[in-house]
């Protein structure tokens, strides 16, 4: 475990940059991590981040399929919002652990 200063706050992160403590998360931090990942956050991004954080808080697993059925975005839009590796990027920005799902 290491720490990293994001948006002026010291944050606990894992080796690959995922936040260890979801309660440390804020929108400013999200924007900062997003910038590192090459993503410019819009309202739609935050809507999805909310969905992801709620899911994780409820102890449910995250899958591409689940997000495609979230009612916020479909799978294609998800790829457009977080180009490249959507689930990895979105969870990193949302301040939740790296997803363990294979789908």
């Amino acid at each position: 475990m290491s720490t990293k200063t994001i948006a002026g706050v010291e944050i606990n992160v894992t080796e690959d940059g995922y936040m260890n403590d979801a309660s440390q998360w804020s929108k400013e931090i999200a924007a900062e991590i997003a910038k590192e990942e090459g993503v410019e956050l819009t309202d739609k991004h935050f809507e999805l981040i909310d969905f992801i954080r709620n899911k994780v808080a409820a102890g449910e697993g995250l899958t591409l399929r689940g997000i495609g059925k979230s009612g916020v975005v479909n799978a294609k839009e998800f790829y457009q919002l977080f180009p490249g590796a959507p689930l990895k990027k979105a969870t990193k920005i949302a301040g939740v652990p790296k997803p363990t799902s294979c789908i």
Partner: protein
Amino acid sequence: MEKEEKAPLKKILLICSKASIEDVYAALVMGNGAVMEGIETKLFFTFFGLDAITKKTMNKLHTATTGNPGMRMPGGLPFPTILGALPGVEAGVSAMMRKQMDDLDIPPVDEFLELITAGGGEIYACKLAMDMFKLTKEDLHEEVKAVITVGELYEMSGGEGTQIVFT
């Protein structure tokens, strides 16, 4: 800390030639996983693997209940081969397996293909096998990009950091 130089996988080509649930899903899960990692992904279906992209058969795939030593009864007891040969057993077991996968949020084949193409993955069918089974492009799911020859397949699989995997 010193970091190891990494040469990430850039492109992957998955070939599926069989129609059983396990063979098809191995290709689909690995293909979708690659797309989700940002890897350029192409799936090529040939021989019996065509069942996985043929509209009529794609969501009714079976797993073999005879000649399958991994088959178990619910609870883990051995599954007698002779039982697997009875009419309807393979269909029942296969339906149960599809149901269990659905519970784990593993999508049915058609939806899986859509997830893969949503992220830019590409699905291809083998021309030779199509001719053999007398199938036309109209028999295939809409997400299939093209029917191609082996030569075309190799043409599109060039480039550094490319892997070809036969499932």
